[in-house]
């Protein structure tokens, strides 16, 4: 089931690029107003993720701007259906229709990421060990590099492998830890769980710091 949904969402994501209007295609203008209004019972998206979609590292709110629309839509669908658990997110999206979710996804996906400031004052050796994990992995512990799925510059691939470059370190750390503990499991075929549970806490801190230091824009 999960797989069928993922395939559908990949197809839907492709349709956004290649095909004329379909039911699954989001309308970013409608999405903008939905993101500002909320689903009627919950907190509007922009309150935590910002009108610019940049999120907030200290609050653990991820950047949504520029992420793949298919990925964003799947996450909202998963919150709604309880496949991804969050006491905060679930009540904030559960009244949105499938079309509204697509609209909101299209809105955040279309927001610019230019000029994002990387966090300053990160220890050089922490960044270096994070870079190594991202680009080369740690095969002695059977940890493939992040880049083998998320792309050579961590800009994401398709709708199943989100961009990581320029994502807030706090959020990446929180999510990898959730996978490692089995608290997040909405990844296709356990591809992320397999890697996350082999990462040490120090490795999680290092990859999060390095990925957060990257520019979210293509090199």
């Amino acid at each position, binding site marked *: 089931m999960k*797989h069928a949904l*993922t*395939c559908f969402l*990949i197809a839907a994501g492709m349709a956004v690029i290649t095909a004329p209007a379909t039911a699954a295609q989001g309308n970013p203008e409608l999405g903008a107003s939905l993101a500002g209004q909320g689903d009627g019972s919950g907190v509007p998206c922009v309150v935590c993720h910002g009108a610019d979609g940049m999120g907030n590292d200290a609050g653990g709110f991820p950047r949504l701007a520029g992420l793949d629309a298919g990925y964003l839509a799947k996450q909202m669908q998963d919150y709604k259906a309880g496949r991804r658990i969050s006491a905060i997110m679930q009540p904030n999206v559960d009244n949105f229709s499938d079309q509204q979710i697509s609209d909101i996804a299209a809105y955040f996906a279309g927001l610019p990421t230019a000029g994002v400031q990387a966090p300053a004052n990160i220890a050089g050796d922490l960044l270096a060990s994070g870079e190594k994990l991202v680009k*080369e*992995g740690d*095969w*002695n*512990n*059977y*940890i*493939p590099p992040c880049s*083998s*799925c998320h*792309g*050579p*510059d961590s*800009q*994401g*691939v*398709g709708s*199943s*492998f989100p961009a990581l470059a320029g994502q807030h370190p706090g959020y990446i750390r929180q999510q990898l830890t959730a996978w*490692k503990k*089995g608290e997040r499991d909405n990844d*296709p*075929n*356990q*591809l992320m*769980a*397999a*890697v996350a*549970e*082999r990462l*040490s*806490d120090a490795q999680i801190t290092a990859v999060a710091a390095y990925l957060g230091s990257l520019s979210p824009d*293509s090199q």
Partner: protein
Amino acid sequence: MRNRYLPALTLLMFVSAPVFAEAPSVPVSLPEFAEGQYVHTAPTLEDLDTDDSIHPELKKVILRGHDIFMNTQQFRGKYVFNDLNCKSCHLGEGRLNWSGPVWPAVTTLPDFRGKNQHVNSLEERIAGCFAFSMNGTPPPYGSDDMLALVAYHTWLATGAPVYEKNIGGRGFSHLGKTHPGLDYDKGKSVYMENCAICHGEDGQGQQTADGHSVFPPLWGDGSYNWGAGMTRVFTAASFIKNNMPLGKPGSLTDEEAWQVANFINSQERPQDPRYTGDVKETREKYLNFHKFTNYGTVVNGRLLGDHDNTGSKPFLKPDSLRPRTFQ
């Protein structure tokens, strides 16, 4: 340490490393090494960095070889005419056991090779990868690029005994040469369930927005040609069993690995560089190889390999593929 027969220790490395107490939700299930096998732990780039006994100039050449190995696409249109890199089939920088670790080519060659029926050097073996798996042409023998690759391979073999043949983790695995009951539709359903998420339902892989191949194509012009070792169903089955899906080695059953390998190798791909102009004749001529492939056989009413398509490569056979005799 790495030049001793220590299978138990190497195994322990995989078993003991994770830090959690309970059983992992996705175990790393690899075959065990057989009694008496030589098990090698190839050096890492950190070892290279800290090894003062290696001349700085050699370090540079080894690193160049590593760079070519990891990003072979930098030679797209020169040596490589598909979307693959060396690392696509040799995971873990060519160091990983059960993932076609490349160092045994250093310690077991020169030797007679059934595929081309003559004694091969290390350079010639590497050339074979370029000619078949990369659907291209090798860096010229003796060139800087070839020397860099040879240096990287040789350094990975540091400490391994020359001409030792009983090597643990060599190649891809242990699944045997043939399997009964191969069925296209069974393989297709394994594929859709486990592989399509990365490699696509059409097997064409996935690229970044700027066209950089991330998940390699498994068939078609972007993939290995009909002469590549991976077209043998047993080779692909073994690779898949012990390496795929990425991060989940051993998660498919042997049966699933065989079926999906047969499905993947029942699709079209660029012509075998040894093509004589007739697919059935070519299959017969190289039957010691093609008896393990679907090339020149009819699958779903289609005679596989019956075409002149060489992909984006503007020639059929690289000049460096030639017989060698010592008469």
